[in-house]
């Protein structure tokens, strides 16, 4: 009987035949923390009695969530993280480098790796075929010290994606559509494994957008095959040696199969306060938006800024709407400068934030006022998410975000393309 991607990677990680439902102890190839969950992780590590990191060169401390720090308490957390990295030999990723998940994708995760991070969006690296999943501080602390963790091998749901994306529709619309269809607990404890002709045709940026949001349906991991597109991406990132082809067996057993023809999709929006509360952008026309945010580990990559710049070129943001942009990494920032996207966006009225998480989690750099609505390219819209429980967060693609910034109300990007 063949294996799913999840079973293949966990079998290799345990040296045994790992099948859905099995409990296994698996090797961890990469482990990381970030500045909001990292301090507790370090405290748990220190309390556990584990003295050393199992693999300092594959342990990373990211300062990205509150970067630069808005308060002295968070600055002190940053000091604590820097000190830990220095003492243990862990790699430190300083503020301005970018969002942990983007940097893991650009520089660290490899196809077939098992990746554990103290952040739920660790699943992003599934875009290049890594079994990457988020865990809490205790689990990550122990993984740092032991170089392994336990897993229940997940059942897999196969998502077969066909067709060509229509103009103005992209990966974000696909994943919002899927979450709307199966619900915020539609894949709890499961792996979502993506395949089909439309997946083969997808860029890495699109794959990362989709993998990033599988946790919004409760999934443990979202996996893409590692193929020629993956290889070219790794070569372009200067790490072609990290490539290893990876695909599920033809006779793998899936719990269920979901089929999506992207040619039938339309620009999609998740309304407050749940990611599965979806509607079509055109159905929400007239919904006033005070802030548009383009960025994050979901949609802060070069392709996303290119889409936004394409729509905003020669245009101005609506006077009642603020446009905030945070590139996902320093590499994205530099490439966006070189390509002229930032100039276009700034001319349209955008405010550019440092590479990092920006206002996504409500800590700084764009907290909403009472009754205000933000259309964001991020991944979560829970009540209070952007710093104010009296505010409203809509989630959508960079194209919908750019079109909305111009009109000041939720707008189907096909109207301006």
């Amino acid at each position, binding site marked *: 009987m063949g294996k799913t991607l999840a079973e293949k990677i966990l079998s290799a990680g345990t040296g045994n035949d790992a099948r859905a439902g099995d*409990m*296994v*102890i698996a090797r961890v190839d990469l482990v990381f923390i970030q500045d*909001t*969950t990292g*301090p*507790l992780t370090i405290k*748990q590590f220190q*309390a*556990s*009695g*584990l003295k050393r990191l199992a693999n300092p060169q594959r342990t990373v401390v990211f300062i990205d*969530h*509150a970067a630069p720090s*808005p*308060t002295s*308490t*968070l600055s*002190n*957390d940053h000091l*604590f993280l820097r000190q830990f990295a220095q003492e243990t030999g862990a790699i430190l990723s300083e503020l301005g480098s970018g969002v942990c998940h983007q940097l893991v994708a650009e520089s660290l995760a490899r196809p077939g790796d098992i990746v554990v*991070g*103290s*952040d*739920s969006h*660790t699943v992003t690296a599934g875009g290049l075929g890594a079994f990457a999943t*988020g*865990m*809490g*501080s*205790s*689990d990550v*602390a*122990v993984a740092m*010290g*032991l170089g*392994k*963790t*336990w897993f*229940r091998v997940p059942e897999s749901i196969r998502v077969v994606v066909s067709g060509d994306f229509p103009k103005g529709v992209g990966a974000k619309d696909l994943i919002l559509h899927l979450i709307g269809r199966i619900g*915020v*607990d539609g894949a*709890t*404890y499961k792996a979502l494994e993506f395949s089909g002709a439309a997946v083969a045709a997808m860029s890495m940026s699109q794959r990362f957008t989709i993998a990033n949001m599988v946790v919004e349906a*409760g999934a*443990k991991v979202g996996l893409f095959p590692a193929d020629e597109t993956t290889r070219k991406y790794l070569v372009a990132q200067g790490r072609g040696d990290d490539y290893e082809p990876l695909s599920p067996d033809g006779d793998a057993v899936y719990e269920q199969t979901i089929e999506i023809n992207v040619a039938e999709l339309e620009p999609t929006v998740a309304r407050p306060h*749940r990611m599965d509360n979806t509607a079509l952008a055109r159905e929400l026309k007239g919904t006033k938006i005070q802030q548009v945010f383009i960025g994050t580990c979901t949609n802060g990559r070069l392709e996303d800024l290119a889409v936004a710049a394409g729509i905003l070129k020669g245009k101005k943001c609506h006077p009642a709407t603020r446009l905030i942009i945070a590139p996902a990494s320093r590499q994205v920032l530099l490439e966006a400068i070189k390509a002229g996207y930032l100039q276009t966006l700034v001319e349209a009225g955008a405010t550019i934030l440092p590479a990092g998480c920006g206002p996504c*989690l*409500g*800590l700084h750099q764009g*907290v909403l006022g009472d009754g205000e609505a933000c259309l964001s390219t991020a991944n*979560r819209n*829970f*009540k*209070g*998410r952007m*710093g*104010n*429980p009296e505010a409203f967060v809509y989630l959508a693609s960079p194209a919908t975000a750019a079109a909305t910034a111009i009109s000041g109300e939720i707008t189907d990007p096909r109207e301006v393309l």
Partner: protein
Amino acid sequence: MLRGRAFKFGDSISTDHIIPGRYAHLRSNLPELAKHVLEDADPSFVSKVKKGDFIVAGSNFGLGSSREHAPLVIKMAGVSAILARSVARIFFRNAINLGLPVLICDTDHIDDGDELEVDLAEGTVKDLTNGRELTFGRIPEVMLRILDEGGLISYIQKHGDFKL
């Protein structure tokens, strides 16, 4: 045997409801952080909850972020166990890792304020207010052993490694 009152919550209570990101600057000051537990779901919860009480929720409790601070502030509030129809994956593991039991059962017939008695060994919940008795699903063996040691960190202190 655990005994306390039920604090009833609905479906999809997220980690942002439990401990919002806007309090991230308090994460290294746990007593201050804990004052905001479940603030965005029920602002009066923190002033009413007493040691031993239960959180009784609908489906998908704890969805969202991996922040272990979420079950931590619930535990610090004195909650002795979480009863829910279902629970999000990372939260489930985090709660057990802190020694906070999460019991999966049909919570529909438990009302806010009901007096409950939970027998962890027997796997039963008695609603002393309405007389109903429920059973909850078994916690996987590996998690039970972690729970028995009071959480993952004390488990590792004692054993130094995982055992399945």
